[in-house]
């Protein structure tokens, strides 16, 4: 249902990618580890290799959860999803080559790690 206005309403995309000085926004969320309050926002170069996201960016956020040091990103125990679809990232390829475009949401699940009190916190 289109917006109902008096006269023509301007279209103003406040967060288009050109406004981020060469970066794009990427959100990263860890499923069932609610101690980390929410998915977090990262301004990243689209060409950044996916592996760098995992090794350099994510630790600054998830080191605050005791489970993080037990996560093994190599043995396939981590289940990834991109914008709601499950996917298997190629660590050597860039974000954009992995389909991670502006304002994409990456979620990772670690079913073997149950968080605080084993209830997903």
């Amino acid at each position, binding site marked *: *249902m*289109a*917006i*109902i*206005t*008096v006269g023509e*309403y301007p*279209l*103003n*995309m*406040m*967060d*288009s990618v050109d*406004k*981020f*000085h060469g*970066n794009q*926004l990427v*959100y990263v*969320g860890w*499923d*069932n*580890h*609610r*101690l*980390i*309050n*929410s*998915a*977090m*926002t990262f*301004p990243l170069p689209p060409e950044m290799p996916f592996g760098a996201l995992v090794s350099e960016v994510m630790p*600054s*956020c998830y080191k*605050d959860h*005791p489970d993080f040091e037990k996560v093994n990103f190599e043995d396939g125990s981590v289940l990834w999803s991109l*914008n*709601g679809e499950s996917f298997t990232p190629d660590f050597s390829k860039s974000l954009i080559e992995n389909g991670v*475009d*502006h*304002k*994409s*949401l990456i*979620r990772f699940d670690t079913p073997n790690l149950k*968080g*605080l*009190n084993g*209830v*997903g*916190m």
Partner: protein
Amino acid sequence: MTMNTQKRKKRLNMKDKYKHMTRLGWDTTYQDMDDVFPKDKFEGIVIHDWEGWEDPFRMTMDSYWKYQGEKDKKLYAIIDAFAQNNGQKNITDARYVSALKLFLTGVSPLEYQAHRGFADIARNFRGDGPRVACQMQAIDELRHVQTQVHTLSHYNKYFNGFSEFAHWHDRVWYLSVPKSFFDDARTAGPFEFMIAIGFSFEYVLTNLLFVPFMSGAAFNGDMATVTFGFSAQSDEARHMTLGLQAIKFLLEQDPANVPIVQGWIDKWTWRGYKVLGLVSMMMDYMLPESPQSWKEAWELYFEENTIALFKDLERYGITVPDCAATVSAEKDHLSHQIWMTFYTHAAAAPFHTWLPDEKKMDWLSEKYPDTFDKYYRPVYEHWGKLEKEGKRYYSEMLPQLCQTCQIPMLYTEVEAGKPTQIAHRQTKFNSERFHFCSDHCKDIFENEPEKYVQSWLPVHQIFQGNCGGSTLPEVLKWYKVEFGQDNLDYVGSPDQKMWKEWKGEE
């Protein structure tokens, strides 16, 4: 001449007299009525007879001035007395003051917006009855923001976190939640504003905002806040009857209005509930002595009172907002999840947070038997360990925000039985991705995408470089938040140090 030479004159009853005192308008002929009232038809609301309006209260200006003058005389006498005998010393604990900081920075600016909004619709409705009722609410709302500023001005002299409330409301990240809520209502048409604020916020949710704050103040020895709250709330009683009358009027005018009004009720009960998340945190965590839990307040003021209201509206085809089920499901988790977010992001907010002590945690266990000990006590115990090791946890991350309500994506899939899994919803508009905390927020976006793509999302604005820089110190400087004074934990804050001196502790 004897004293009572009163001739028996015809006496007008109050209803008729009030009509003569308010039906003063006319249909213009030198200018087209649609040019004089350009805003009250575009929303699709059909009004056949503006005189179908039943005046919700019948107070002419002379008695308004008389009674409101008396109310303010009493109110300011108490504010003065509170200041003179340093009433701020007699509150239960200085942690309580952070609830007042939240109120001045997050709620008082909404009163100002309501003042401007009700003046706007008082000018733009064609009917005389609603125009008089709305303009009297407009001046009432100005009273509320001004009395709140005056009451809290005394606290501002001693405690941090009040001084830049106007500057903060336009900029600080979590204050974009109440600000965008009211900007949304203020930029909508006059009828949507009336349903959004006059009905959903003033009627359905006002008791959930005001009464908990005021009884919280009473329980914690803050007589100044109790007084202004109760005094302001008596004006709110008029506003509630106005909101109720407005919705009935619209629903009676034309069946075509019913689906439009239902859509607004659904949207604004949800958007109002989102803003009230701040109240849930205040009630459950920020009051040293808590009269009532959020869950109890919700059950009393929404489930009990509002259901009675919706029974009243059933005959018009109006149903309880569909989000009510979500809110009920979330009532065992809401305040805890929000407090966790504010505890971890306290470096970037101009009020204090802290870990609940044993006494509070036991109270929370009793009030939330199914959820507190299982999900949240372990979190506070984990952070408690860090605090003891001198590593009080602050997150340096900037959260993903919901595009509609602008709250960090901290809400979980409680209704779907997965209370620790953060709820993610997504859509695309104009080939750009947008994210939401719930189906309800997503629906609101998809109904009016051109409106919500304009949202000034604080996190994105920081990354665009519009908030003074990219580092926390730069952003705090732009916010005018004094690091180590306005923000961070209550423990170790200047507020705490002052409080201990007052109490002769240490």
